[in-house]
């Protein structure tokens, strides 16, 4: 049986999850990663995606997050998301709106660097959109 550790999911507006979990899958910028107890100290940025939380009592929960970063230490993991909602409460129009906004940003972007950043974000969003839609 895997050890448990403390996991916190925080958005600027509120604290969404705080508790003992056995496993968390987070969408890190360079690929998804599963965090378990005694993970090496890591700091990573995250991309828009789904966080899967497996609680100590075996319950599973999924949250949609949009960007942010995670701070992982052996005894715990803190995920600071720019915006986070529970999958059940997630509104599909919201993501469509974000895609629209990103497209609008893209058309006004001037430097290549900016364009690249926005395009990456856009592709992440569309991937996420595809991942949630059938649900």
């Amino acid at each position, binding site marked *: 049986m895997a050890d448990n550790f403390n996991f*916190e999911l925080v958005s600027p507006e509120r*604290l969404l999850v705080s508790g003992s979990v056995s496993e968390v899958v987070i969408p890190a910028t360079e690929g998804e990663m599963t965090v378990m107890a005694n993970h*090496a100290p890591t700091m990573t940025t995250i991309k828009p995606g789904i966080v899967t939380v497996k609680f100590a009592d075996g319950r599973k929960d999924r949250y949609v997050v949009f960007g942010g*970063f995670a701070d992982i*230490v052996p005894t715990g993991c803190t995920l600071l998301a*720019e915006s986070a909602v529970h999958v059940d409460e997630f509104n599909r129009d919201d993501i469509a709106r974000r895609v629209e906004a990103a497209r609008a940003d893209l058309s006004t972007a001037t430097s290549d660097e900016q364009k690249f950043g926005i395009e990456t974000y856009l592709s992440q969003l569309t991937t996420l959109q595809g991942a949630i839609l059938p649900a």
Partner: protein
Amino acid sequence: MPSLKDLKNRIASVKATQKITKAMKMVAAAKLRRAQEAAEAARPYSQRMSAVLANIAQAVGQDDSAPRLMTGTGKDQVHLLVVCTAERGLCGGFNSQIARLARDHTRKLLASGKTVKIMCVGKKGFDILRREFASLIIDRVDLREVKRIGFSNADQIGRKVIGLFEKGEFDVCTLFYSEFKSVIAQIPTALQLVPASAPAAVADTTGATAIYDYEPDASAILGDLIPRNISVQIFRALLENVAGEMGAKMSAMDNATRNAGEMINKLTLNYNRQRQAQITKELIEIISGAEAL
């Protein structure tokens, strides 16, 4: 000397005003509670944020790769002041306190030959600062339509600030807002956003000084983090402002209600005296009329 009827009308009107101020006080109290809850809910995020930031800043150190938002442009010629105030008045000295701090700061900067640009968040600050520095105001953000301040509102302002910085429009950015100490005390505060003053590394008992793996690398994370931190600071300032505004409004309206009560007492006393005087006068007339017969 106002007639009895005039007095009666005045009492009625003061009573109506008192009812309004009382209702406003109650509304402010309810909103204050909500604003305080929101500010409290946002606290964990900003706390962790500054802890993480301190950590990374230490790791990156005074590296040349540190983002310019953190190191600054190396000059301090052009200052951007972001002044956050409330959208509405009737809250005592709340707005003017913030505006006064910003004004003093502006005067000082102008006197030392710096260029100042002002961005106003909230209508009241704009109204006050417009009188003196109309030409310096480059932008204003209107939050009047916003019922409940969300992170996206703060993020928009943050993006504007960062966009201006990238265009080289300013060197130093300072945020003005009111810190919420208690219902009766709000302290106008100036906070430097750019260059970001790295929060002093907090001695963490969980051994946060452990060697971290960074993914991607530390400076990339820092580059991602600093703009976000600016938005978070603005968000926190906006929330503190709302709580402060409601607190100030509550005590202002409480005062107003009490003043109205005093006024009613005075007017009622006056009214009763006059009524009595009239009765006495009428009695004298009757009695002297009877005696004359």
